[in-house]
Structure formats: C-alpha cells, structure tokens
C-alpha cells in the first residue's frame, strides 16, 4: 500500500519526464521494428535446407539458385529463349551450337567466368535433369573453344536445346565454377560461389530459420529490360533475408504489422485478413500457376490394366477436387491440357474423360467390362501438405462412388516420397495412386513434363509407365524443326497419354503473394526473384 501511495505521489521533474518520454519513444521504435530501408525481409513458401540447385528440384532451392547464380540463357515472358550469360549461333544444319560468354562476368570471389566453368556446369546439369539427359543422348561433344566460347555438337537433330537451357524451373542451367561443378552429381556441393546478382551470406545461414543474400556489387546486368529470367537483373537493395515462419498465421500477422515485406504464398482462406490492409498488395505473381494431378502405378494391379486406369480417370473430375483444394473460383480453373492452359503447346486432345467427369455410372460400367475384382487401391494421402492433402480425400470418394475399393492411407509427405519410390507389390510396401502438383513451366512441353516418359521401371517417373510409343513420339518432338510440327506432335502425345492414362491432370490453381506497398517492381513470373525490386520507406 505504501508503495502505491508513494507512486501516486511521485511527480517527475521535467528532465525525468523528458528522459521517460525519450525512452518510451525509443522502446516503441524497437517494438515496431522498422527494418532497414535497403533490406527486404521475405517469407518464402518453405525454409531452404538443400543449397545445391542441381541435386534437387525443390522450388526453394531453385529460388536460391536464381539469387546467387546466373543462367546461361534466360526465358522471356513470351516463352522465348534469350541470351543471359551467353549468346549463341546455330549452324545451318542445326547440329552445332556455339555459345559466347558476355563481358563482365565474374565469380563472387573476383575470378572471371570462363567457358570451362559453363561446360562443367552443363555436364553436371545433364546428369540430373530429365530433359537434359534426353538431349545429351544426341550430343556428340561439348567442349570449350577458348576462354569465352564453347561448342555443343549434336550427332543427330535435337531442336529443343535452347528451350531446355532457358527453362525457368525444374533444373535451370545455373552456372557454377568448374571446381564446384565437378562435384559428383549425386553429392551436394559445399562451395556456394556464384556469379549471380546476389551473394549468399553463408555465415548468417541458419537452416530452417533464415538465409541471407547481399547485393553483388560486381554484377554487371544486361542492358535489356527484365522479362522473366531474361534481361537485366538490376539489384536495388542491399540485402534480402528469407525468414522462415512455420506458422502461416504468424506470417500473416507479421506482414500486417510491417515486420516482413513479402509473403510468397498466401493461403486463400486468410486473404480477407490481408486484403483489408491498405498498406498491402495481394496479387498473383505467377498467373500460369500450378497443375495438380493424380498418378497411377502401372506396375501393380488393378492399375496395370489400362481399362481400369481409364475407369479411374472417368470416375474422377476436376471441379470437385479443385473445390476442396482451393474453393475460391478466382484462383482455380479446370484445364484439359497436360501442358497447362495458356502455354504454347496447350491442347484439349484426348481430355474428354477427365473434363466430363465425374461420371460414376459410366466408370462403373467400364469397371464391370474390365472385370475389376475389387482389388483395393492403396491411395497415399500426405496429411502435412495443405496443397495436396484434400485431393486424395475427394478422389477416394469419387472412386468409391464408381465402385472402386479404396484404401486411403494417411502419412506424412516424407513417408510418401519414400514409399512412392518402391516398385514392390502393394503387400510388400508398394502403392497404387498418389496426388501431387507442379508449376506449369515444369510440365509445359513433352520434354519438360516428367510424367511423359515411357521408360518403364528403369527411367520413367514414379508409376513407371512402360510405353515405348510415347518415347518415340517425344523423340520426334525433340527433332521437329518448326513450331507447327511441334504443336501437332505435342497434341498427339497428349491424346496418347490420356488414352493410356499416363497421368490424370485434375485442374490448375494460382496462389496469391502479398507484399507491403513499400515494395515495387516485383516481376510477374513463375519464379519469385528479387532483382528489379525497389523498397521505399514504409
């Protein structure tokens, strides 16, 4: 009581009042935590752990690749390959590509970038990337000519070389120093020297917590305006910090409160919390978006029978699955193209069964005709991946309505990715079906699309279609010399892939990003990049 009485009687002097006021102002400044005007704090879709953008196709590692490495070629918004580190000339017979590195390219340690670095990087990329593996089967030699020039010689036509080298996702052609690029392709690199617009601050890297990038002052951008991964990569900030926030509600609170500047993926159901804030911009930066899909295992019954695969596709439908996954029509659409809608090879060829679905009665009749014996379908459901988890639930119900017996098995994503690699029968740990998703540039051509590979148990993607006819058509596609022929072959490939049910696309969706109004210049493209971005005081 006496303390309270004393406190009430306390009358601070003017000096003390000033000091108190100054302290409060200073403390509240800390509380509001205004970030340095030249630092962008971003919450990406996941934390980065693997730092080698060639060993993994994880999107976050690809994004890291774009920060610290440069690519040989870029791809512009018209989906055309453009020079980035190198320009090129093609011989009249289309078999010799001569690449010349531009002036001013330097590694972060100051050494010049040479053609030997580019060749070693391309060779390592060729061991990991599916499309590149296909290309290297047609390569006779890839050798440096001098410090700035190297030559790729083909033994047979392969007209998709530039598109593969310029592709923005999957495994882009990130160029590393020769000493790093000589790391075996199955082993992660441990030297993160790049030549890109940002430098990786390894000392501040905390896996699962944050990754820090600082401006590469020595980077010489191209003169052209930026367009996707082509054009000048002009960096306007000193640092970019990727902060990991495992709880999305925390990230939403943090951007609302000005503690971060950019949120790469905003869950649709939390949009109202952000759209109401006049200091924020919510927009889709990658209008091409994502394709989501179901894959069936060709090795195990009942999906070793094409008629039962066709019945499964007829039983499914895009709209019910998209409704459960996304819900908001503004961010989802049905699409009958395996290459994604709005892309150069987009086509509806063969998509009628999935686009007309769900058709349970028709699927029932097809099952009966195929003599389905009730073998349960083991459908793997990753409960910890929100962008996939609802799909198997709806898919299972649609299949059951058509007469399938479905054993949906919930598991975490890491268990799923391990189990889907198993080619064993179901009783020995195998599987029948799972769902996953891709960004459109990863599926937009028969060469890029990982599912459209008929190499069976040895070479095909999980599900292992043994389909030599498909591979022959892909080879023809790769050898086609003009766009019209390519389009025709792509349509034929898709019609065939739907006929044999290589995989089942179940729709497309986009994910909005959120940024503080103080950020400007975010490029609209499939990969979030931080060049061209400016930050004003908030």
């Amino acid at each position: 009581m006496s303390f309270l009485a004393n406190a009430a009687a306390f009358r601070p002097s003017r000096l003390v009042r000033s000091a108190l006021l100054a302290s409060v102002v200073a403390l509240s400044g800390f509380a509001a935590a205004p970030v340095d005007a030249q630092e962008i704090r971003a919450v990406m879709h996941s934390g980065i752990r693997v730092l080698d953008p060639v060993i993994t196709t994880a999107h976050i590692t690809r994004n890291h690749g774009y920060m610290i490495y440069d690519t040989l070629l870029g791809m512009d918004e018209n989906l055309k390959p453009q020079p980035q580190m190198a320009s090129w000339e093609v011989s009249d017979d289309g078999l010799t590509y001569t690449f010349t590195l531009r002036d001013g390219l330097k590694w972060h340690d100051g050494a010049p970038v040479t053609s030997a670095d580019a060749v070693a990087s391309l060779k390592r990329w060729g061991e990991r990337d599916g499309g590149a593996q296909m290309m290297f089967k047609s390569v006779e030699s890839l050798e440096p000519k001098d410090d700035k020039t190297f030559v790729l010689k083909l033994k047979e036509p392969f007209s998709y070389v530039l598109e593969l080298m310029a592709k923005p996702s999957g495994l882009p052609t990130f160029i590393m120093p020769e000493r790093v690029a000589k790391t075996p392709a199955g082993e992660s690199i441990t030297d993160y020297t790049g030549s890109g617009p940002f430098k990786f601050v390894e000392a501040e890297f905390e896996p699962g917590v944050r990754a820090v990038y600082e401006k590469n002052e020595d980077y010489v951008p191209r003169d052209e305006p930026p367009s996707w991964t082509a054009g000048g990569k002009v960096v306007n900030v000193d640092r970019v910090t990727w902060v990991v926030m495992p709880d999305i509600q925390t990230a939403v609170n943090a951007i609302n409160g000005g503690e971060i500047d950019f949120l790469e993926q905003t869950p649709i159901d939390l949009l109202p919390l952000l759209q109401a804030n006049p200091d924020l911009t919510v927009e889709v930066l990658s209008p091409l978006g994502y394709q989501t899909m179901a894959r069936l295992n060709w090795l195990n019954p009942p999906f070793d029978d094409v008629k039962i695969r066709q019945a499964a596709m007829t039983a499914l439908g895009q709209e019910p699955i998209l409704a459960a996954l996304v819900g908001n029509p503004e961010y989802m659409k049905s699409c009958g193209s395996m290459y994604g809608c709005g892309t150069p090879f987009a086509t509806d060829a063969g998509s009628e069964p999935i686009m007309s679905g769900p058709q349970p009665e028709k699927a029932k009749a097809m099952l009966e005709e195929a003599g389905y014996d009730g073998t349960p379908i083991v459908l793997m459901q990753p409960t910890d991946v929100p962008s996939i988890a609802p799909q198997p639930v709806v898919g299972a119900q649609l299949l059951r309505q058509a007469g399938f017996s479905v054993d949906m098995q919930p598991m975490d994503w890491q268990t799923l990715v391990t189990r889907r690699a198993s080619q064993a029968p179901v009783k020995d740990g195998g599987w029948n079906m799972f769902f996953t998703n891709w960004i459109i540039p990863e599926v937009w051509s028969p060469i890029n699309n990982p599912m459209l590979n008929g190499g069976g148990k040895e070479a095909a993607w999980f599900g292992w279609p043994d389909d030599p006819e498909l591979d022959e058509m892909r080879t023809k596609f790769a050898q086609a010399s003009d766009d019209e022929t390519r389009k025709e072959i792509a349509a034929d490939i898709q019609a065939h892939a739907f006929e044999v049910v290589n995989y089942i696309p179940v729709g497309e969706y986009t994910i909005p990003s959120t940024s503080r109004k103080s950020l400007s210049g975010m490029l609209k493209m499939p990969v979030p990049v931080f060049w061209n971005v400016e930050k004003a005081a908030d």
Partner: protein
Amino acid sequence: MLAYIARRILASIPVMIVVALFVFLLLRLTPGDPAAIIAGDMATPAQLDQIRQSLGLNEPLVTQFVTWSGQLLSGDFGRSLISKTPVLRLIGQRLEPTLSLAIVTMLITLLLSIPMGVLAAWRHGSLTDSAVMAISVLGFSIPVFVTGYIFIQIFAIDLRIFPVQGFKSIGEGFWPFFSRIFLPALTLATIYIALIARMTRAAMLDVLGEDYVRTARAKGLSERVVLFRHALRNAAVPILTVVGTGFALMISGVVVTESVFNIPGLGRLTVDAILARDYPVIQALILLTSGIYVVINLLIDISYAFMDPRIRY
C-alpha cells in the same frame, strides 16, 4: 555428496549408450529416405540410389552405427544430411533462443505461481483460493496456441507494445531481446503457473497442518516467516521436482510456442529434422535431450539436500 554425484554420472553412461542405440535403430526402421527428400520430385530411382550411395545410407546398419559411434567418441556429431551444416553448429544456433525462452518462462512462472500457491493455501477455502484454482484450471485448459494468438492480438497487433514474432539475441540489446521473448514466455508460463501454483498449494496445505507450523505460530512468529521460512521450505521438494522437469521439458523443445512466435529453438529443429529424416541431427538432439534430463534430475536430487536437511547422500 561428491561420491554420490560421481556415481550418478557414471550410472548415466550406460543410459546414454542405450539411448544412442535405440534412437539409431528406431530411425533406420522408420519409413523415410533422406535421399528422396534431398532429390525433390523429379528424381529417378537411379538418381536416388546415387544420392543414397554418397550419403553412406547403402552401407549395412552395423557399419553405419560403428562409423557414427566412432565420430561421437571423437566429439564429432557429424553434418546434417540435408544442409551439410555441422550438427553442433545447428544445435548451437538454436540453443540460445531455447534457453532464453525456458529461463524467462521459469522466472515469470516462479514469480507468480509460488505466491499464488502460498496465498491459496494460506486462505484455504476462501474466495482467493477459489480464484487461484480457477486461474489454474483456465491456464491448464486453454491450448497454448490459443493463448499465444490472444496475446499477439492484444499486445502486438492492437496495442503494438511488442513485435508479433521473432527472436533477437540479448547481445543485440535488452529491449530487442525482451520485447520478443516476453509474449512467448508469458504464453508458455500460463501452463506452468497453473501447474506449479496447484502443486505449491497442495504441498503447503500438507505442511500447514503439521505440528511444527502450529509451534511456530505459538512462538509468535509472523505469518510471513511461518509461511515462507517454515512451511514453504518444507513443501519445496515436490515443487522443485516439477520445476526441474518442467525446465528440462522446455529445453527439449516447445514446438507450438516456438512456431506461433517464430522462435528458432530446439523444438522446431527437432520437428524439422524428423520430417526431413535428417538422421545425424535427430540422433544428436535426442542424445542432448537425454543428457539434459540426466543433469537436471541430478541437480534436483542435489537440491533436495539443501532444501530438506533430513535428506543426505
């Protein structure tokens, strides 16, 4: 006493060996493949096998265990399979946030819960007692993420007194540190306040009925001396046990609180490592946690002797 401590430390060695073996085998028998996690979605079976080979995961289990044990004996906990960062560096990065959270939580808890428990016992059956019990039930019943979000809404978003999330080292200044650690610590403390206040109340009620308390009062000692010097000291053994195990629990990770407030602590590291099947990191974390439990239990046992002179080792 020293002989007792030495005996306890020696006894913990076989415990740690059993833990190491158990964890090693459990992880290898759990479904999951670090190679598949590293490679991403597009890898072919041959590429996965190539990565497995480079990580040494194709070696027989016995060889892998011998290699790991050999590394441990030379003080090397290995590197993360996924990020290639040394495991000790990873743990070191997360230790400060975790220790800070645990210490501040325990300070808030002790400052509030012990007086609350003593008060409730002293005013047994009164409105004060009921209020303390009600607060305890409430603190214990509301999930920590709900409490966390409520505190964030009030103190960070509406009143803007504290930041929403994050952690700053105390080396960066007291206020940056305190403003970020206070809300998560308060959130976590709600559970421990409830637990320890109830425990203190129960222990005090037992003791307050004892003859020596009546004797102390009969001697004319003040209530403050009776309560805090005579009763509380004798009631301290069960309270200390709960405080100790609670502290160990917090150091081994409080994932939900760490996630809600984005504190990069050991709990999140553990969950991330388990989800990524990052064997060396999980193994080191579980060994560390076991070690912490051994040490804290030892400290609790030693402290009994100081609190209660009847206990001798």
